[in-house]
């Protein structure tokens, strides 16, 4: 799989049995929907908050950032904001293939997470803090 931002090869990072695709050049992260499902199940959470329908019902985030294409189906993804303190701007595939986190955004999240209590707040925050934990030394 190639990175949707820098087109470089993606490396697969496995932690706690969950696989996440990671672009070593631009630090971006692709979270496949199947793996997201596994993570939520292992946290004993249901999938609400992350189903394709729910994500697509969210308002398109206003941003000047370039549209990204889903690395699986190559269609343009939707810009969304998930989580509360930290808020993260992500790209979500319309067909529900997965979520994309830009390198810079994840870096911000990690810095914010260092100040706040990890795994507090909603389901989306727990997923974000899982990624923050996996990519602790990503910058």
């Amino acid at each position: 799989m190639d990175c949707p931002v820098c087109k470089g090869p993606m490396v697969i990072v496995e932690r706690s049995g969950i696989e996440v695709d990671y672009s070593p050049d631009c630090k971006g992260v692709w979270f496949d929907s199947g793996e997201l499902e596994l993570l939520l199940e292992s946290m004993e959470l249901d999938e609400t908050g992350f189903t394709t329908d729910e994500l697509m019902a969210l308002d398109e985030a206003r941003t000047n950032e370039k549209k990204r294409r889903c690395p699986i189906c190559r269609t343009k993804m939707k810009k969304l904001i998930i989580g509360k303190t930290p808020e993260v701007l992500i790209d979500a595939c319309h067909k529900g293939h997965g979520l994309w986190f830009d390198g810079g955004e994840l870096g911000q999240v990690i810095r914010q997470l260092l100040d706040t209590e990890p795994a507090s707040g909603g389901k989306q925050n727990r997923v974000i803090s899982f990624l923050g934990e996996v990519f602790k030394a990503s910058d």
Partner: protein
Amino acid sequence: MAMGGILVLIGYLIGVAFFSNAYAGLILALVIWFIMNLVAYFAGDSILLGISKAKKITHDDHPRLFNVVEEMKIASGLEYMPSVYIIDTPAMNAFATGRNPKNASVAITAGLLQKLNRDELQGVIAHEMAHIKNRDVLLMSLCSVLLGTIVILAWYASRIMIYGAILGGGRSRRSGGGGGQGQIIIFIVAIALMIIAPILAYLIYFAISRKREYLADASAAQYTRYPEGLASALEKLSQSTHKLETANNATASMFIINPLKRSERAAADLSSTHPPISERIRILRSMAGGASFYDYNTAYSAVHSGKSVMGAASLTGAAPVSIRGASAAAVAAEPEPTRIERARETSNVLWKYSKHKLVNCQCGTKLRVPPNYRHSNIKCPHCGRINTIPHS
């Protein structure tokens, strides 16, 4: 099958253009159709597995899957071990292919393999093994040849009759009289034939296909002695939201569930290669008495208000066959791997075959580097250690 129609058109045009004769075109179309089916018959498995991005696996790649296939091979009494494939897609499905038991293969998608426990996997593999044992691949390709031929012939016959009617009509107008009515009847018959014959052929094809599915379900129950395994696997399959993208009409009948249709519609019953999943589950779950064909037939009758799926010949002389307990209660109870473990087992096979290199970082993070990664080392994103990538 739509290809059959296009083929006829091409054959017809070629026939008219080069031989100025529609019959030559007919023969040409039939010959091409026949050759295509021969190719599909002899190389169909490799074509199918090729377009499905299937990876052939060995025992060590995925011991559980391989063992389950071996178990079902023994239970079905097949003489040859089929090849085992994993298809790299999150969609959930499985199929069997091969023109005879000696050259057979079973394939399962990574998505399905991850979701099923051992009993469910056994049910699915038993269903596929039954397709091999019952020679359904051969039967369905024969049916498809017949269906194609009927479509081609109906198209031609109607065309000829219409031309005949038009030409005849022209003549009868000159001579005057009541001949015109006869021409109209021929015209109507021709159009009716053109429309009805292919539809009828399709319906028969689908009916046979559905019957073979029921038979394979019955055989699976008999092989595993545990209808609940297949029933619960079908339940998981019916909840799947992913669509198998590489499936097409010609290959649909060999899958465990119809890969082309996502939702179940009872109205579409007649034009489907597979019976509705909910009904298949209901039949399997009502097999309270035992796991033989007789019990399946009884359960089928209960669900279908008295109808029967199997001929009397396959039901006589059957000894009572009892249903076993779930495998957790069996002699050598094996701890069932968790879903994450199953997912990793499956993806590990796929990474291996796509030539990803494994880097085990000291912090416990596993990195899998694709073959087109150019650098000789990689920084672990979790702990920041620089790891060297091993040479092949």
